[in-house]
């Protein structure tokens, strides 16, 4: 039997709320064969991780950013990501408690998705699917494929 050694797709998620970090990690739990969720607890930590990837590691297939984070907020992290050539093309989603039209406009301006955090299990299921929808077609197929 040949065992596949295909590397997992990395979903990077930055949020200072540990309950939300756990929520998203659990949501991707059913894709654990194909997805690894890497997390950061503030904007500076997020940017440090992403900058370290530029030289020697595969880019995430999706970056999820909370807006209200200490040290550097999600909108500033998004701005900086778009100035980093290797990461500028990676899909980014602002995942937030905000429903502000200004924040939605900001996301649109920077070609990022905008998803309000869920209030119940039904919304969480939809949102997990929406996260994956932001990835490229090839990645989507890879993430959703069932293990043999």
């Amino acid at each position, binding site marked *: 039997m040949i065992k596949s050694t295909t590397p997992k797709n990395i979903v990077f998620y930055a949020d200072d709320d540990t*309950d939300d970090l*756990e*929520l998203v990690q659990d949501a991707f739990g059913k894709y654990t064969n194909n997805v690894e969720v890497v997390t950061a607890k503030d904007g500076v930590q997020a940017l440090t991780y992403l900058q370290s990837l530029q030289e020697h590691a595969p880019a995430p297939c999706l970056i999820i950013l909370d807006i209200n984070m200490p040290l550097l907020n999600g909108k500033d992290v998004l701005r900086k990501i778009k100035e980093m050539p290797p990461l500028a093309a990676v899909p980014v989603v602002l995942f937030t408690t905000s*429903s502000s039209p200004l924040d939605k406009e900001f996301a649109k301006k920077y070609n990022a998705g905008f998803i*309000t955090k*869920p*209030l*119940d*299990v039904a*919304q969480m299921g939809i949102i997990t699917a929406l996260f994956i929808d932001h990835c490229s077609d090839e990645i989507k197929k890879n993430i959703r494929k069932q293990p043999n």
Partner: protein
Amino acid sequence: MRMSEFADLPLSKQIGIIYQQGVYVGKSKKGQFIKLLFQLEYFYIEITYISYRLSIYKMRYSEATSILDPYLDQIGVEYLVM
């Protein structure tokens, strides 16, 4: 929408309205329960979770600002002057 009208809606509709129109105010923890507070027009809705953002234990509504008390440390000045 008045608070009494909101209170008469089924839970799924209430959740949909909070998701679309609610303004997040803050989060608090008491024992095993996590609570989220939202403002909808002139009243507040507090959601208490058994399982955070997944399974709702109860909701309470209030027009009184005293419901803000456990969340005051998280509320920015810009919210208070709105």
